[in-house]
């Protein structure tokens, strides 16, 4: 199996793991970490593309994605902190005031 296909497979598996984690974890921080895994899987794919086609635009894109992931994480964590501050064990399934 060529290395490209291997990396492609890895990124797909990582994406799936991250997705499963996003669905299963109830702790907000764990949820955000799973999402980070998904974002990094996508980034891996972009880096693979850069390697295959040798374009600088994809390398720039990969760096931009890192910045974006960081921004998302910051805001997500801040919101999680504000929302779950008063609970001993934070659980996203507790925040169900908005429904219907």
């Amino acid at each position, binding site marked *: 199996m060529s290395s490209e296909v291997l990396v492609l497979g890895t990124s797909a598996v990582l994406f799936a793991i991250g997705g499963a984690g*996003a669905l299963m974890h109830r702790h907000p921080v764990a949820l955000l970490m799973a999402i980070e895994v998904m*974002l990094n899987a996508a980034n891996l794919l*972009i880096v693979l593309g850069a390697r295959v086609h040798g374009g600088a635009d994809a390398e720039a*894109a990969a760096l931009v994605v890192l910045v974006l992931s960081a*921004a998302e994480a910051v805001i*997500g964590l801040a919101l999680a902190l504000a929302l779950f501050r008063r609970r001993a064990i934070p659980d996203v399934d507790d925040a169900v005031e*908005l429904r219907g």
Partner: protein
Amino acid sequence: MTPTYWAVVILVFGAVVLLLVVSLLSTHPRVVAYAGLPFAVISAGFGLQTPQPLALAIVALCGVCAIALLLIPVLEPAVPQHVAEAAALLLLGTAGAIGLAQATDLLQAVVGLETLALSAVILVALGAGDRSLEAAFKYIVLGAISLASLLYGLGLVYLGGGSLAFPTAAQIAASPLVLAGIVLVGLGIAFELALVPLHWGALDAYTAAAPGLAGFVMSASKLAAAFALGRIVLAAGASLGQVLIWIGCITIVWGTFGAIAQARDLRRMLAYSAITHAGFIGLALGSGPAGAVTAGFYAAAYASMAMLVFAGLAGPWSVDLRTIGRWRALALGLGLFSLAGIPPTPGFWAKLAVLVVAWQAAGWLPTLIAVAGGVFSVLYYLRPLPDLFAALRAEPSVAVDSRPVLLPGVVLATLAVVVMSIFPGIAWYLVRGA
């Protein structure tokens, strides 16, 4: 430097100025709001110099920003120290939206999208109470998941095609990777547009945000996403269009039925209605090249009426309709008429335009679904009106909280809707040309 570049730069600069300079000089909400206004106006001026269809996007986005800025002063009781941040985020979000609307390749689209989305998330959080925080948290979690799939799609497109530009139909046909990638990218932007099956977070965000900010989040995201998806669909051709038609129809059905169930909760009904309108935009986007232009026109019409409704509702999260006073009640009534698609309001013209292109390009069934979704919407939009108008002559015992500080915002939004009612050709010219 192109006018688009200047439009974005001025808005970003304005956000920085507001955040760093104005907030140190004065915390009076009206000062902050009015300080942000010139940046939006100048940016709109630059927008008028851009070629169609971008002209409509920039003018509409700056208009939405301006109206939202004028509605900021009523945020004060909820978030007293954060008025300057709200104003700065409005400008920054508009800049991101313009960036997304004018994007010609995937990276520009992602950067613009994220700027808009993250600003929107914080704006949603800037309401009072846990409700807004919960909505913002869900919005960012779901947004991050859709961003991850969008980026995955970006990676697939690059892997298959070697370029970050919007792939053409030929490139899509040549490589299944590019096809899968562009579908994922389209869906990622469809999250911003709030199409089913990615509407969950948007529903809560539109419901729980403070009224003026909710209007901004709804309108700006739809405008930007409509124009961006329009470009993508124009490049990609029918392969992406078919998907959008059916997603659009499902969204119209979902939103309509969801809204009917919200007889007691006006804010939630308006959120479901936003989903329904997103469905119309999606349907238009799928209806060929003429449809992409119509989608932009629809988004602009929707932005004007959404801002009008929320200008009428601005204030605390849940407002008692009997206390909003005469002018805001009339504005709210006009806005609801427009959302329901009553002629001659802009909502009606936009719906009619979508029906025309849908009939020509999408077939009879999507058109029928769109017609049904459009006409039966009167059942939930017009329901509050008899009570609203009866309360125009409020009982002496009911204190009227008409909030004159909102008047400039209400007037501006009403003007926009009235002008679009009588002269829809102006917006059409900005998006299509002569």
